[in-house]
């Protein structure tokens, strides 16, 4: 029996077998002549399939008379969902649960917050007033406290892969760069510079210690960079000299207020008289004393601002420009608290001071200077009338 020696050979069939009808997609749009000519796919020898239409449902029905029609099958599938398929896929309907984080041992104390000590310690962090934190450290965007999980044993293969020499060198260079700017940046106080240098030295030690300590080193570098960027981006009005000028102006305004008061006795007496016509509630009110209280409170605020400016710039050398708003608002708060003290005295709580305005003025100055005293006082009073903190919050009630 003779056999065709070419039978079973793929010689010459490469293009027709492997290339799509549209040609090689990787040569589409290439300049003419740059690509190999691609012959159109040919039909198998001896069979001309060009123009052969696809089989219709009727053709299939003739070929397979016993088979159900495609339309009937579709209708059947639509009527009855494939329960076997759905049962198979059910486990994939929900995602696998993440492994639970290791629970803290019972009785373990929560980790101490690692917040940076800021230069402003006038406020007691525990003070709350009307439920609001007034500690400057706590003012700002609130975030949930992030508790770092215990470090897990690093996989040496992953460490070798992820912590490259290049990455280590980049971090080392970042430390070099930051150290250079810390020692030359004009807006950074000595304390802040010291803290940054400490952090950078720690980062160097971590990098020198082990490759898998890079995450902690990067954390230290990141915090040092944040401190630097905050100082670098501080505005002109956040600088100590401008704040000093503002306090000076405020002091002059207070002194001007006293001088005006001495020359405007008639006006103040007339205002007192007009107020008394409003009713007996205003009988004891003296606008002159109120005015003086406001001014003494403001002077106390100015003194407090001056004192803190001196303390953080000259003594502790930890001035932080991000607290500039505190310095600007302190004299204004002092003025308001001076008025508040007078109102308290009028209410009878400290009635003996009505006869001795000098003590009233000293008190107004004192609360302007040490404003957290009055906040504490108000907080304690409100606590007596407000809801009990313990057991009243949804968390503890639940």
């Amino acid at each position, binding site marked *: 029996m003779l056999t065709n020696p070419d039978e079973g050979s793929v010689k010459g069939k490469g293009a027709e077998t492997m290339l799509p009808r549209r040609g090689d997609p990787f040569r589409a749009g290439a300049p003419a002549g740059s690509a*190999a000519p691609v012959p159109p796919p040919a039909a198998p020898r001896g069979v001309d399939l060009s123009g052969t239409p696809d089989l219709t449902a009727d053709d299939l029905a003739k070929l397979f008379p016993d088979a159900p029609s495609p339309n009937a099958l579709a209708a059947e599938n639509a009527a009855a969902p494939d329960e076997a398929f759905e049962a198979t896929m059910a486990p994939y309907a929900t995602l696998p649960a993440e492994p639970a984080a290791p629970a803290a041992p019972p009785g373990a104390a929560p980790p101490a917050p690692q917040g940076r000590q800021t230069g402003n310690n006038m406020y007691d962090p525990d003070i709350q007033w009307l439920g609001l934190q007034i500690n400057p450290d706590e003012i700002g965007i609130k975030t949930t406290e992030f508790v770092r999980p215990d470090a897990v044993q690093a996989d040496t293969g992953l460490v070798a892969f*992820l912590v490259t020499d290049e990455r280590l060198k980049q971090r080392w260079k970042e430390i070099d760069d930051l150290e250079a700017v810390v020692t030359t940046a004009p807006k950074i106080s000595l304390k802040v510079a010291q803290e940054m240098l400490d952090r950078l030295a720690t980062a160097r030690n971590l990098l020198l210690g082990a490759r898998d300590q890079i995450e902690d080193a990067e954390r230290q570098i990141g915090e040092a960079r944040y401190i630097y960027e905050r100082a670098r981006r501080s505005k002109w009005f956040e600088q100590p000299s401008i704040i000093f000028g503002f306090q000076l102006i405020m002091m002059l305004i207070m002194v001007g207020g006293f001088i005006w008061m001495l020359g405007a006795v008639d006006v103040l007496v007339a205002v007192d008289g007009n107020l008394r016509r409003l009713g007996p509630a205003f009988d004891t009110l003296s606008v002159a004393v109120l005015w003086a209280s406001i001014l003494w409170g403001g002077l106390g605020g100015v003194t407090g601002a001056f004192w803190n400016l001196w303390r953080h710039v000259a003594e502790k050398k930890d001035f932080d420009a991000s607290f500039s708003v505190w310095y600007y608002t302190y004299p204004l708060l002092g003025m308001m608290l001076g008025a508040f003290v007078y109102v308290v005295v009028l209410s009878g709580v400290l009635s003996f001071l009505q006869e001795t305005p000098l003590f009233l003025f000293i008190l107004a100055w004192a609360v302007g200077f040490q404003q957290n005293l009055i906040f504490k006082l108000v907080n304690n009073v409100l606590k007596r009338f407000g809801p009990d903190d313990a057991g009243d919050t949804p968390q503890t009630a639940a």
Partner: protein
Amino acid sequence: MTRVIVVANQKGGVGKTTLVSNLGAALAEAGQKVVLIDLDPQSALTAGFGLDPYALSRTAYTLLTRDNVSLASVLRPVGDNLVLVPGSVDLAAAEYQLADAPDQVFRLRNVLARSRVPADCVLIDTPPSIGLLTVNGLVAAGELLVPVQCQYLAMRGVRGLLESIWLIHERFNPELNLLGVVATMYRGGSDHSREVVDELQAVFEHKLFDTIIEDEDTVAKAPVTGKPVLTYRPQSEAAAAFRRLAEEVLHAH
């Protein structure tokens, strides 16, 4: 710049997984930092490195189906300079779960785009079909590597793949280039194997790699030991072939 290479062929059994594991090992041996990604629900690549695809909590499935999962969090070290994103049988369900996702074909691409893993090369192993998983690989990659078993039916698989590339180019990833075609499972002394290589040469010209991967027992046995050939039999002819191929791949860049 990280090279992302997808290894695909519509036909099964042409040596995709073998190529990914051994080419990855050879590139790593050459000093490249290599990430292997197993997108095949059969997870042969994962099993070939001695990992149990049924016992892994974080796999390519996690990467594709969950938002904001980083590449680094699913990596498994499988050799020096070589890490693996393991596959799992769950990948079979990923196609259904991602059916309504607007970015269903861009999931892997997005993961790689936001990854900070310092890899020189990412090699993606795909299943033997043009489904969502393979398309994810083709969309994420910059280069396509096509293994073709030295048999007629494997040649036919190339056509199915190239048909899909037209669509990928038009709709999702016009930047996908052909890195090359590798003749695999070559049987020395077989006229048929030689003819297939000749046809590959005629059609793909310089895109056909000079290195031909022969059909050897060593290649088949290596996965049993959980190692690539380069580790299992470093002095074997197969290991040498993969090293030569790695050199070609590096120079084809």
